[in-house]
């Protein structure tokens, strides 16, 4: 995991310093796991509840899985650009692969009766179900996950 920018810490409202980082990762499970562990440690440190940490882990898993498998096509020579920001109000994570991108609106609804027995196609819906907001760049190779703190 090479650090592109050093981790930035600055005071946030309410005292707990905000935490953020930007990295370029090798497109592999082990690199993704290290990146996720970093976010999860920050998630706990910023006192997001276990449900929120579970949700962000699940959504990150799906984002990395899509990037490694579909975007970068299991090519470990490719990279993933990864960013996270954790503050008082929200956790944000961005994952970008080197692929051609995809149209998230074209993914069939896996909960429909005709699709329920198809093994794939649930990652995007899980991200959307667990995050406050999921958005993509125009090319469709960069996903931004945002989870707001429950009050």
């Amino acid at each position, binding site marked *: 995991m090479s650090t592109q920018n050093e981790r930035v810490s600055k005071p946030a409202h309410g005292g707990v310093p905000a935490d953020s980082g930007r990295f370029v990762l090798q497109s592999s*499970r082990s690199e993704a796991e290290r990146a996720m562990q970093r976010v999860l440690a920050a998630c706990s440190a910023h006192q997001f509840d276990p449900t929120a940490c*579970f949700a962000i882990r699940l959504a990150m*898993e*799906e984002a990395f899985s899509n990037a490694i498998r579909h975007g970068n096509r299991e090519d470990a020579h490719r990279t993933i650009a990864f960013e996270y920001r954790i503050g008082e109000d929200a956790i944000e994570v961005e994952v970008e692969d080197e692929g051609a991108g995809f149209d998230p609106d074209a993914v069939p609804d896996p909960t429909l009766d005709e699709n329920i*027995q*198809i*093994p*794939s196609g*649930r*990652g995007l819906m899980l991200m959307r179900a667990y995050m406050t907001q999921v958005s993509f760049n125009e090319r469709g190779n960069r996903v931004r996950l945002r989870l707001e703190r429950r009050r």
Partner: protein
Amino acid sequence: MEASGSRLRIYDQDGVTRVEFLDRNILDEANIQQIGDEVGRVIDANPRPRLLISFANVDHLSSAALGTLITINNKVRAKDGQLRLANIDPQIYEIFVITRLNKLFQIHEDTQAALASFS
């Protein structure tokens, strides 16, 4: 039947093949594929498989794991067998509800209830 490197504990009890996970997190696609292959071999070896998969100790699973469970379910049904899931943590169960897979799978609170449900 716990081959070295296996990610599962598989054993027979009263005509039911019980499958338990050794991993707390069922996330890594290579591991998930291995799990699918192992259970696939069990299904292949049984003319009419009766399978109980327990999720006790499982903390996380991904959509790839759900995909493998669907494939397992399709294989079991193709052989006119029966598949039951049990001991699913409430947080994990919510994933099944969100994806509506709680309607596809027969899910039971615990092992005892699942075992009693086989016909």
